[in-house]
């Protein structure tokens, strides 16, 4: 697979179909895997593919400096691929300017990340070229939201106490925002000050307001790549917040973000039949 990937990258660059290949690299065989930008065919051998390729590289597709390089190829896993669908739907990228290299993935990390254990997208479906062989299995929603379910089984006071303890550690480094492929706003609302809606202080108050905002601005958009939680320096499990929204979307509207390119974005569309059992 790795040779096929390098070969494909070489070909795409040599034939000038793309100007940059966004893939994974590793500074030493034991070292951590990091995003890598290949602009010359002869450098394609630096690309790697293994169980440490955590990053969702689609985050780079909307960046000005990356776009300035020209058409890009991006290496994606099945989970990351959904972001491309969302970005396209939100008019953030021209699909024909991006060559999507799909990697069949058996899960990242060892043991696999929680998201990988309930993954039903081992094989990218919309890639321009897909490397590797694997069969997806259906994973019932119940299983996908098991962690959330377990958390929601706790009483509300305990949930509140949990978040107070967790969010107290947040220093507002905004790694969660910067790593998110769907946080592409030129100026984040938390950085706006006319008026200032969210306290920029990393107090409990400011942190609650920030994390409510971050999660909710991804409602019906988050594809559960889990990067926000993975990169959090202080280990706050933000996937619980994202999942609560994802599950509500799936339950109420049968909607999964990035799943079906034909479906309109969830927030921004509506139906007269939408349920409203909580509205008096």
């Amino acid at each position, binding site marked *: 697979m790795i040779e096929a990937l390098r070969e494909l990258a070489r070909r795409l660059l040599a034939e000038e179909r793309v100007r940059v290949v966004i893939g994974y690299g590793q500074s030493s065989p034991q070292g951590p895997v990091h995003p890598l930008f290949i602009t010359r065919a002869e450098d394609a051998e630096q690309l790697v593919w293994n169980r440490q390729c955590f990053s969702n590289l689609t985050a780079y597709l909307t960046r000005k400096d990356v776009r300035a390089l020209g058409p890009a190829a991006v290496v994606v896993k099945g989970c990351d691929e959904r972001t491309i669908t969302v970005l396209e739907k939100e008019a953030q990228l021209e699909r024909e300017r991006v060559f999507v290299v799909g990697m069949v993935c058996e899960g990242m990390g060892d043991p696999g990340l929680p998201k990988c254990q309930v993954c039903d997208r081992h094989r990218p479906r919309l890639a321009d070229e897909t490397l590797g062989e694997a069969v997806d299995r259906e994973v019932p929603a119940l299983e996908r939201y098991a962690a959330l379910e377990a958390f929601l089984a706790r009483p509300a006071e305990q*949930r509140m106490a949990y978040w107070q303890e967790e969010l107290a550690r947040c220093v507002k480094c905004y790694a969660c925002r910067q790593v998110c492929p769907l946080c592409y706003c030129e100026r984040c609302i938390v950085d706006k000050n006319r008026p200032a809606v969210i306290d920029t202080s990393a107090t409990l108050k400011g942190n609650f307001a920030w994390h409510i905002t971050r999660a909710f601005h991804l409602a019906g958009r988050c594809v559960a790549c889990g990067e926000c939680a993975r990169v959090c320096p202080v280990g706050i499990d933000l996937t619980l917040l994202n*999942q609560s929204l994802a599950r509500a*979307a799936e339950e109420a509207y049968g909607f999964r973000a990035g799943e079906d390119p034909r479906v309109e974005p969830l927030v921004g569309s509506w139906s007269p039949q939408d349920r*409203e059992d*909580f*509205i008096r």
Partner: protein
Amino acid sequence: MSQNNGFDPKIIAYVCNWCTYLGADLAGTNRLEYPASVRIIRLPCTGRIDFHLIVKAFESGADAVLVSGCHPGDCHYTAGNFHARRRWTLFRALLDVLGIEMDRIHFTWISAAEGRKWQEVVTEITEKTKALGPYRAYRRICEGGA
């Protein structure tokens, strides 16, 4: 109501300009009494009631929040309330996982003709909030510091 010790809850009502605001107004002109604990904030449409406003209300010391607008199909801007309905469905799920007390957030449709419904809803929410007491958990968040 001895257990409430005269607790006077602060309830923020975000209402749309075209239906609920007029409904509340009608309640007033018809001399329908309702508790003074509700502070009405008028917005053009429920579609404009950003979730930040709900967070801000709790940050500012609200014990409960009411969001109210036109009945589905009656929106002055055709679909503002339909958009809002989806957002609230999702937003409630987020608040729930955070452990926000869901009994303190209320959504209703109240038309310009429903002065009586306004009276009922506000009275009921006030009673309910009185029973719950002040929203101490969110105050603690706001006073928690770093």
